[in-house]
C-alpha cells in the first residue's frame, strides 16, 4: 500500500493497488517526452473469467478516480458510480470483471504532477510533461497487458471518460468489443475549452499556487482550486435543476447585506469547492483540463470520422442527456451519423433528464435500463461467460 497526501492539510491516505508500468520499454507521450517506470493506480471489482473475456474498463471523468464503487479512501464516501457498478447493479460485478484506473496526470496514485520526479527528488509540479487523452488510454492498455487481458469486453465512460472510450474505439479497436461513450464529444468544444481556461486561471491567480511549486513550499492554492470547481460545477448542472433545487432560497430569514453565502446555491457551491480541494490536486486540474482541451479525434479536421471508424467491429452505444449543455446531444448525434455512414453497429439514445451533464452520475432509471440492456445484450452477442462459467 502506497500513501499519498491530499488537500491543504496534506493528509496522508493509503490509495490501494498501484502497478509500475513501462519497466522494459519507455512510454513515449504525445508531447514527445519519454517516461518509464511510472505508477498507475487502479481498482478492480468482480472476477475475471477463465477465458479472460469478461473485463469491462470504466474510464473516469476529469475529477473522478479509480474508486468507482465501495468506500473512497479520501472522502470516506461511496465511489463515484456506486449506484451503477456492483453485484446485481446495471454493470454487474457478479458477471463482469470491472477495472478502473486513475488516469495519468491525475492525483490518486497514478503518474501525475504531485508525484516525485526521481531526477530532482522533488514533486514534478509544472515540470510535469503534458499528457493527452491518447496517452491516458495507452497507459490503460499497458495496465491490461500487465493484467493479462488481451481484449476488453467493453469500455465505458462519461464526459472525459467518454472521450477515452472513443479514443479506445478509434485507436485500439482490436482490443475492445464494445464501447459506451456517454455525455461526451469527439472533440472538446470552444465553450468547454473556455470554461477550463477559467478554472486554470483561477488556480494560477491564487498566490499559494506558487508558480506551480506549492508542494515544495508546503502551501496550497485552496481558494483558486475551489473557485475553479465552483465554476465547473455550475456547468455540470442545468438551469431547471438549479431552479428546482435551490431557487432563490436563502440560508437565513433575510438578506445579510454582506458577502456571506446568503443564497443556498452560494452555500452549496462553496461546499462543493471546499470538499473538492480536500481530495484533488490543483496542478492535476491544470494538466487534465489541458488534456481534455487538446482532445480532437479529427485532429483539427484532418481526419474524417468515417475514415477513422470505417470497418469498425466495435459495438457502440452512444448516450446523451437532453439537459446537458456542456456536451449537448448534437455532438453525440454527429458521432452517430458518422458511425451509421460506415454501417457500424451503433445504438444511440438521448435520455430525457433535466439534471444537466451530471445526469449520467445520478439516479436516472431509464439510463440504468439502457446500460443493463446494452451490456447484457452485447455479452450475449459476443458469448461472454460469467466468472463461474455458468449461463448468465
Amino acid at each position, binding site marked *: 500500500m502506497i500513501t499519498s497526501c491530499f488537500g491543504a492539510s496534506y493528509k496522508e491516505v493509503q490509495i490501494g493497488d498501484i502497478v509500475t508500468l513501462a519497466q522494459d520499454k519507455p512510454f513515449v507521450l504525445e508531447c514527445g517526452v519519454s517516461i518509464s517506470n511510472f505508477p498507475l493506480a487502479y481498482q478492480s471489482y468482480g472476477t475475471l473469467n477463465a477465458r479472460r473475456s469478461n473485463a469491462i474498463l470504466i474510464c473516469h471523468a476529469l475529477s473522478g478516480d479509480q474508486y468507482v464503487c465501495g468506500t473512497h479512501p479520501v472522502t470516506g464516501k461511496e465511489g463515484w458510480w456506486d449506484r451503477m457498478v456492483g453485484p446485481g447493479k446495471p454493470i454487474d460485478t457478479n458477471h463482469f470483471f470491472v477495472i478502473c484506473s486513475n488516469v495519468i496526470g491525475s492525483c490518486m496514485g497514478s503518474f501525475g504532477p504531485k508525484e516525485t520526479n526521481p531526477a530532482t527528488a522533488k514533486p514534478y509540479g509544472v515540470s510535469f510533461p503534458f499528457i493527452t487523452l491518447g496517452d491516458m488510454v495507452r497507459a490503460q492498455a499497458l495496465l491490461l497487458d500487465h493484467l493479462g487481458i488481451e481484449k476488453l469486453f467493453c469500455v465505458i465512460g462519461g464526459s472525459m471518460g467518454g472521450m477515452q472510450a472513443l479514443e479506445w474505439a478509434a485507436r485500439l479497436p482490436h482490443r475492445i468489443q464494445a464501447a459506451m461513450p456517454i455525455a461526451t464529444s469527439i472533440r472538446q468544444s470552444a465553450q468547454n475549452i473556455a470554461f477550463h481556461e477559467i478554472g486554470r486561471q483561477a488556480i494560477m491567480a491564487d498566490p499559494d499556487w506558487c508558480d506551480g511549486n506549492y508542494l515544495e513550499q508546503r502551501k496550497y492554492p485552496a481558494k483558486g482550486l475551489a473557485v475553479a470547481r465552483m465554476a465547473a460545477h455550475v456547468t455540470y448542472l442545468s438551469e431547471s435543476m438549479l431552479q428546482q433545487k435551490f431557487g432563490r432560497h436563502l440560508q437565513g430569514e433575510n438578506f445579510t447585506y454582506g458577502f456571506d453565502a446568503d443564497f443556498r446555491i452560494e452555500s452549496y457551491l462553496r461546499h462543493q469547492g471546499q470538499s473538492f480541494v480536500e481530495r484533488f490536486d490543483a496542478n492535476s486540474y491544470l494538466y487534465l483540463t489541458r488534456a481534455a482541451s487538446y482532445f480532437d479525434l479529427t485532429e483539427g479536421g484532418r481526419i474524417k470520422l468515417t475514415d477513422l471508424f470505417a470497418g469498425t467491429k466495435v*459495438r457502440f452505444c452512444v448516450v446523451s442527456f437532453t439537459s446537458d449543455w456542456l456536451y449537448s446531444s448534437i455532438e453525440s448525434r454527429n458521432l452517430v451519423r458518422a458511425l*451509421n*455512414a460506415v454501417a457500424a453497429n451503433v445504438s*444511440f*439514445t438521448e*435520455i430525457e433528464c433535466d439534471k444537466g451533464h451530471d445526469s449520467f452520475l445520478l439516479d436516472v432509471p431509464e439510463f440504468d435500463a439502457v446500460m443493463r440492456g446494452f451490456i*447484457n445484450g452485447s455479452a450475449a452477442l459476443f458469448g461472454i461467460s460469467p466468472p463461474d462459467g455458468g449461463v448468465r
Partner: protein
Amino acid sequence: MHTTSKQIPSNGPDPATSAGIVLRPDLQAIADMVAPNTTLLDVGCGEGELLAWLQQKKNVSGRGIELSQTGVNHSIAKGLSVIQGDADTDLQYYPDQAYDYAVLGQTLQTLRDPKEVLEQLVRIARHAIVSVPNFGHWKNRLYLTLMGKMPVTKTLSYNWYDTPNIHFCTITDFVNLCGDLGFVIEKRLYVSHQGVPTTFNNHDFFANVLGEQGIFMIRR
C-alpha cells in the same frame, strides 16, 4: 378467401410458442418475407419487436431507428442496436446498399416526405419492405361517404386534428407512386380486417377495397 393464422407462410417454427414473442400480424407478414442470416434496418422500429423476433428466429443482424425515446430505450434494453432518430432526416447518413432489407412498418403516412424516404430505403437496402394503411379500404370510403366526416376506425384511430398520419394514401396510390419512381414491386400482400395476410389473388381492385393494409417488398 380468408386464411387462418396457421397458414401464414413461415420458414421458422410457430412464433407464438418458441420465441416468446407474438408479433402483430402485419409485422409477422413482414418477418416472413425476410430470409434468414441477412441484415436489416427497421425504420420506426418501435420497441424493437420485429428486430428481436428476427434476431432470435432467423439470425438476422438488425438495426433500428426510432423517434420515441421510450421505444429506443426499450429496444436497447432488449440488447438490440437502435438509434434515436428521424426517418425524414437521418436516412441520408446511411451508406448505399448497406443492408439486405430496410423495413418501414406503418410509418410512411407519418413522414414529412414519404417519397424521399422511399428513395432512401431502396438506396440503403437491396429490398425495402413497406407496410401502408389503406385509406381506400371500404370502411373508410363508407365512413366518409355516409357520415361526411374523416374516418375514425380501429386502424385509423385518430381524429383529423390530432393524427400523426399526415400523408395518407390508398394501396392504388402507393402502387402508382412505386411506378412513378421506377421501383420494382417484388412482393405484395394485404392484411384484411381480421388481421390475416392474403394476396386477394393479386386482384388490385379488391385489394384496394378490402385490404386494411398493404405490405410491399420493393427495390430500385
